[in-house]
C-alpha cells in the first residue's frame, strides 16, 4: 500500500513538473536573453548608475557579483548586530558575532544553515529586511552564474558574458518575485500564517502558559522554498504546523523547490540552440533524483533498527501529517537541491536512510541542485565526463563544440576539488585538533560514535555544498562550528563561482568546432549514463571511507 502512495505522490510531482518545465524554461531563456528592459528596471539602472547594455568580461561579471555579495554579507551581519536598536525586534538582543557571521554567510551563500533558533534569536526586521532579502538575492546570484555559464557555452568567440546587474535584476523581478507571490498565495490558501503579530500567549489544556509566535510566514516560506534556501521562520522549519500545515502545503513546498532547478535544463537547451542537450541533462538529474528517492523511501519503509521495529514504522522524527512518504519525498527534494528545509528530522532516519540525504549533498547537489548552482554543477561534471569520453573516441574532447583543453579541464577539476576538500578538512579538524574535539564532543554531539561522526560530517557537507539542511542532534552554535561552517559556506559558494565564471569566459571566447560524425554526441542515453556514472563514481571514491565509518558502520551494526 505504501508503495502505491509513494508512487502516487511522486507521480503527481512529476506530472506537474512535466507540465511546467517547458514553458518556464523557455520563459527563463527569454528573461535572460531579451534586449528589452522593463520601465522599473530602467529606473533601477538609472538610480544605481548602471549601463544595462554594456557587455562584461568574466572578470567584470565576477567582480560585480563579488562586490554585490560582500555588501550583502555586511548588511545582514550589521542588521543582526544592531538588532537591539531596530524596530520589530520583538525585544531580542543583538546576535553575538560568531553566530551573526555564520548566519550572514549562510543566507548570503544560499545555504540557510541555522545555528540558531529563529524564534529566540531574530526579530521581524532581521527576518524580513535581512534574511528574506538574501533569500531572493542569493537565488538570483546562483541563477546569474548559471546563465553566464550557459552563455559561455553558447557564444561564439566573444569576450562578454552578459551584464551581471541586468541578470540579477531580471532574475529577481521577472522570475523569483512573481512566482514567490503566487507561491505565497497558495501557501496562505493551505493555511500558512501571515501576520506581523507579536507572540500570543495562550493557556494550554493542562493550564500551562504557552507563547504562540506569529509572523509573515507565508511570504517568507514561498521564497525559502523557491530560491532553494531553506531557512525556516521557525526552528522546526517545515515540520512546524505554521510553516507547513498539511499534505497540500507540503506538496506546494516541494513543487516550489523543484520548479526552477528542473526547468533550467530546458533554459540551457534553448539558449545553446539544442534542446536535446537540455533533455539529456534533465534526464540525468531526474534519474539520480528518482533512484535516491526510491532508496530513501525503501530504507524508511523497511525500518531497520530496534526502535522502528518496536514502533511498527520508522516514524521517529517524522510528522504524522506527512507520514513516511511525505517526509522522504521532502527530504530527497531538499537535499537533492540546495534547500536546507526539513519537514522531518534526518537525524532520526534509519542509519542507511540517513546516509541518503547526506549522499545527495555529497553528489554536489546536482540532482537537480540549487537554483542555478545545480545546473552549473552538472555542466561541470558533463565537461569532465566529456573529457574522458572524448579521449575514448580519439578526439580532443569537446562539449557543445567547445574544446576542453588544458585550461578548461584545470578549472573544471579545481571545481570538483573544492567541496570534498572543505568537507573532509573541516570534519578532520573537528576531531583531529584536541581543543576542537573537546568542543565537538563536549557540546555539539548528542550521540558520540558513528552517529556523532555522521552529524559532524553532515554539517560540513551541508555547509560546503550550500545546502543548509541539518542532521539535527548537533548543537552547532559554538564558536568553532559557527566560524568553521560559516567559512565553509563562503568558500563552498564563491570558489566554485570564481572557477565557473572563469571557465565561462574561456568557453565564450572559443569558436565552436562543427559537429561531425566523429563528434561525441552528448545527448544520447549512453552519454547520460556515463555522466551519471562519473557523478556517482567521483562521489563514491571521495567519501567511501568516511561513509564507511559513519552511516555504513552504524547501519550494518
Amino acid at each position, binding site marked *: 500500500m505504501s508503495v502505491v502512495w509513494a508512487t502516487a505522490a511522486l507521480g503527481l510531482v512529476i506530472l506537474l513538473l512535466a507540465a511546467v518545465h517547458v514553458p518556464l524554461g523557455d520563459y527563463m531563456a527569454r528573461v535572460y536573453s531579451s534586449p528589452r528592459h522593463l520601465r522599473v528596471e530602467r529606473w533601477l539602472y538609472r538610480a544605481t548608475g548602471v549601463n544595462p547594455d554594456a557587455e562584461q568580461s568574466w572578470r567584470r561579471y565576477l567582480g560585480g557579483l563579488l562586490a554585490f555579495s560582500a555588501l550583502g554579507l555586511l548588511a545582514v551581519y550589521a542588521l543582526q548586530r544592531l538588532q537591539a536598536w531596530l524596530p520589530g525586534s520583538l525585544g531580542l538582543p543583538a546576535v553575538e558575532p560568531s553566530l551573526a557571521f555564520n548566519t550572514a554567510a549562510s543566507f548570503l551563500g544560499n545555504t540557510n544553515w541555522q545555528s540558531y533558533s529563529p524564534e529566540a534569536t531574530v526579530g521581524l526586521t532581521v527576518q524580513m529586511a535581512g534574511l528574506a532579502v538574501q533569500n531572493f538575492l542569493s537565488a538570483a546570484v546562483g541563477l546569474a552564474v548559471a546563465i553566464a555559464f550557459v552563455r559561455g557555452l553558447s557564444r561564439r568567440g566573444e569576450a562578454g558574458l552578459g551584464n551581471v546587474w541586468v541578470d540579477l535584476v531580471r532574475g529577481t523581478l521577472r522570475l523569483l518575485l512573481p512566482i514567490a507571490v503566487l507561491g505565497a498565495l497558495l501557501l496562505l490558501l493551505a493555511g500558512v500564517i501571515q501576520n506581523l503579530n507579536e507572540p500570543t500567549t495562550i493557556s494550554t489544556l493542562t493550564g500551562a502558559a504557552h507563547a504562540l509566535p506569529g509572523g509573515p510566514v507565508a511570504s517568507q516560506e514561498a521564497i525559502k522554498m523557491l530560491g532553494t534556501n531553506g531557512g525556516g521562520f521557525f526552528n522546526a522549519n517545515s515540520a512546524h504546523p505554521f510553516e507547513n500545515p498539511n499534505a497540500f502545503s507540503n506538496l506546494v513546498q516541494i513543487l516550489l523547490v523543484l520548479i526552477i532547478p528542473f526547468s533550467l535544463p530546458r533554459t540551457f537547451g534553448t539558449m545553446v540552440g539544442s534542446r536535446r542537450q537540455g533533455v539529456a541533462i534533465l534526464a540525468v538529474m531526474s534519474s539520480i533524483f528518482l533512484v535516491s528517492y526510491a532508496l530513501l523511501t525503501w530504507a524508511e519503509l523497511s525500518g531497520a533498527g530496534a526502535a522502528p521495529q518496536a514502533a511498527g514504522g520508522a516514524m521517529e522524527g517524522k510528522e504524522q501529517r506527512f507520514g513516511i512518504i511525505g517526509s522522504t519525498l521532502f527530504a530527497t527534494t531538499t537535499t537533492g537541491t540546495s534547500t536546507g528545509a526539513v519537514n522531518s528530522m534526518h537525524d532520526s532516519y534509519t542509519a542507511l536512510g540517513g546516509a541518503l540525504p547526506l549522499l545527495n549533498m555529497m553528489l554536489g547537489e546536482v540532482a537537480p541542485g540549487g537554483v542555478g548552482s545545480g545546473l552549473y554543477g552538472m555542466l561541470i561534471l558533463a565537461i569532465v565526463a566529456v573529457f574522458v569520453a572524448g579521449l575514448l*573516441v580519439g578526439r580532443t574532447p569537446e562539449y557543445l563544440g567547445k574544446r*576542453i583543453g588544458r585550461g578548461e579541464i584545470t578549472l573544471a577539476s579545481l571545481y570538483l576539488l573544492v567541496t570534498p576538500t572543505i568537507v573532509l578538512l573541516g570534519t578532520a579538524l573537528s576531531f583531529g585538533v584536541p581543543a576542537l*574535539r573537546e568542543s565537538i564532543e563536549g557540546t555539539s554531539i548528542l550521540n558520540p560514535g558513528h552517529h556523532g561522526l555522521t552529524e559532524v560530517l553532515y554539517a560540513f557537507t551541508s555547509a560546503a555544498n550550500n545546502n543548509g539542511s541539518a542532521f539535527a542532534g548537533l548543537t552547532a552554535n559554538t564558536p568553532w562550528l559557527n566560524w568553521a561552517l560559516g567559512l565553509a559556506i563562503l568558500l563552498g559558494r564563491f570558489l566554485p563561482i570564481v572557477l565557473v565564471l572563469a571557465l565561462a569566459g574561456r568557453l565564450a571566447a572559443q569558436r565552436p568546432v562543427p559537429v561531425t560524425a*566523429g563528434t561525441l554526441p552528448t545527448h544520447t542515453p549512453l552519454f547520460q549514463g556515463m555522466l551519471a556514472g562519473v557523478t556517482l563514481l567521483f562521489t563514491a*571514491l571521495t567519501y567511501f*571511507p568516511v561513509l564507511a565509518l559513519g552511516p555504513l558502520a552504524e547501519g550494518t551494526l
Partner: protein
Amino acid sequence: MSAPVIDSPAQGGVPPEPERPTSGGDSQPQRALGARALWAALPLALRKLDPRRMWRRPVLFIVELGALLLTALAIAEPFLAPSETATPIPGGFTWAIAAWLWATVLFGNLAEAVAEGRGKAQADSLRKTRSETPARVLATSGAGAWDRSADPAGRRATLEERASSALTIGDVVLVEAGDVIPGDGDVVHGVASVDESAITGESAPVVREAGGDRSAVTGGTRVLSDRILVRITSTPGQTFVDRMISLVEGAARRKTPNEVALDVLLATLTLVFLVVTLTLNPIASSVSAPVHLAVLVALLVCLIPTTISALLSAIGIAGMDRLVRRNVLALSGRAVEAAGDVSTLLLDKTGTITYGNRRAVGVNPLPGVDADEAWSAAVEASLADTTPEGRSVLSLALSDGPRTASALAHAALGGTPAAVALGEGAGTEADAHPAAPEGASGAAGDAAPSGLGRLTGSPVAFSATTRMSGVDRRDGSALRKGAGSAVLAWLDAAGNAPEAGVRSALEAEVARISAQGGTPLVVAEQGADGGGRALAVIHLKDVVKTGLPQKFAQLRAMGIRTVMITGDNEVTARAIAAEAGVDDVLAEATPEDKLALIKQEQAGGRMVAMTGDGTNDAPALAQADVGVAMNTGTSAAKEAGNMVDLDSDPAKLIDIVAIGKQLLITRGALTTFSIANDLAKYFAIVPAMFMGVFPQLAALNVMGLSSPASAVLSAVIFNAVVILALIPLALRGVRYRAVAASQLLGRNLLVFGLGGVIAPFVGIKLIDLVVSLLPGF
C-alpha cells in the same frame, strides 16, 4: 561488431611494411615485448628511480615517497613501541608493502624505459650516418672564390676541406659519386642519383636535381652517380637526421596539449585522494583506533591513478614510434594529436585518388565501323604515343580488344605484355626522367617506338598546334588520334566531313565521355586516295584506385570530410569525385586556392590535414593543422609541414589520422580503466582498515578476502602488477575502429569502464588466495 578496421601498423593484417634497415631488425614491434625486452630496459628503469627525474611524474613520485617512508618505517619498527591500530598487522607487513611500492614505481619506469628502448636501436643506426663526413666547400672569398654566374658548375672554384659539423647555412658543397652528403640542403647545380636508404629504408636510388620539386637532399645519404653542388640549409645538429634521432629516442618529446590536460585531471584526482587519506586518521580517531601508516600509504597508492600515470609517457612514445615505423616523421607530438582531430582531409587527386595517369577504358566504334577495324585503328594510332595514356590503349587492346587488335598490340609491345604493366604502373618521376636508374619503366617506354617501324610507317608526334598524334602509313594513308574538334577539323580540311548521322553520333559520344569526367579521343583515317572517315572514340579516364570508396566511407563514418584537389576542370573533377566517393572537390586549384580553402575550413572551426611536395605547397602546408610533406619534395615543403612521409605516399594521410586517434583512445581507455579500478580496491582496503574494530564492516568485504593484512597487500600487488600487464597494450595501442563516435564510446566504455570495475575484483581475489598462504597473512 564487425566494423571495418582501418589499417594501422599495430594490428597486423596490414600490407607488409618495407623492412627498415635502420630499425635494427626489430621489425615486429607488437611481439617484441618479451621478458628479454623488459630485462634489457631494467637498468634504465632503475636509473629513472632518481628522485630528480621522478618528480616530473608526480603520481609516481608520490608512490616513491611512500615507498621511502615505509622502508624507513620498516627499519625503525622493531625499535618502536607497538602502536594501537584498528587493523592487526602481522610481522613483515610493512616490509611487504614497501617492497611492492618499490615494484610499482619500478614497473612504471619500466614502461617508459621499454618504449624509449625501442626507439634507441633506430636512433643508434641513424647516428652512424651522422658520423663526421669531410665536406668540400666552395670558397666564397680569396683567389679561387666561386662566381656562380660565370661558373655555375663550380669547376674552377677553390675547394676548402671542412668537417661536416663545421658547416653553416648557405655554404655550397661539392658532392661527387661515392660521397656522403654532409648536410641537409638543396641541389643548386647538377643531377645525381642518390641512395637514401639510410633514411627511408628504400633501397632503390632516387634522382635529385637542381631546380624544381626534387632538389632537396638529406645529410647522411650517399650520391651514387654524377656530381652536384648542394647549398646547405640547416646547421649541424638540427638536420633532418638529428631531428629524427631525438624523435625516435623520445628525447625531444614534449608533452602534448592533450597529455597536459590529462595530467591536470590526474593531478586533481591525486589531490582529492591525498585529502581523503590525510583526513582519514583524524576522522577515524573519533570512532576507532587510528589506521596503521603502512595501510594508509597503501590506500593512497591504490587510489591515485598510478596505472595511467605509469603508462602515459609510454603511450606517447609508442604513438610516435608507430608513425616512425610507418616511415612518417612527426616533427611535433602536437601534430600527431591534431591528426586524430582532423575533420577535413585535402587529398591531391593525382597519386592519391587516381593512379598517376589517365587510362583507356574503352574503344567505341562509330556507326558503320566494325569493332575489329576500330580497335586496330586505335592501337595503330597509339603506337607512336609513348605517354602512359598511349600505352594504356595498347594494354586495353591486349586484354579487352578483338583478336586482330590484340595481336597487333602484342606485336607492338615486342611480345612482352608484362612490359606494358610496368610502363603504366610507374609514377611520373620515371616518365619525366627516362634515364633515371630507378625502374625498368624507361626501357618499357622505349620498347614501343622500336617496334613501330617494323609494323607501319612513320610516327607523327603530338603537337600543341595540331593537338593530334598518329601514324603516316607507308602507303600514304594516315591515322590520327586526338581531341574531337581537332580530328574533325583535320577531316573537314581534306573535304572528308563525316555525314550528319556519324557526326551526331560522334559528338554525342564525345559529350557523354566528357560528362563522365573522361577524356574522349577520336580516331580517324584518311586514305591515300583522299577519302577519309572517323572510326572510333577512345574513352580515357582517370582510374580511381581500388578500395578508395570504402576508405572514404570509413572516413565519413569517423566524421572526416574529404576534399579532392585537382587542376582538372569542374566537370571532370566532379565525375572523378563521385566515383571515388569524396565529399567535395576543389577544381582548377592553384596553390592560392588551396591556402584559401584551408583558411576557410579553419575559420569554421575545422582541423585540416593535407599533403604536399612542391615549394608552392609550402604556405598551405604551414597553414594546415597537419601538413604532411613528401620526402621527395623540396626542402621548403619539408620545412613548412609538421610531418614528413619518407615513402612519399599521399594516401598515408588516412593512416596518420588513425594513428592519431589510436593514441588518444589508448590514453582515454587506460585512464578509464585506472579510475574504474579504484572501486574494487576500496572494497578490499576499507573493510580491512576497520574490520578489527567494527566487525560489522565485514559485510563490505564482498570479495571474501582472507584477512585484513592480506586484503591490503593483495590490492597493492594488483595495483603494481596491472601496470606490468598493461605495458603491451600501452605500446601497441588500443584497436581503433572506423565507426561513429557513439558506437566507439559504447564499446570502449564496456571494455575499459565496466572491465575496469570487474577485473580488479577478480584479480585481487586471486592474488589474495596466494597471499593468504604466507604466514601471518
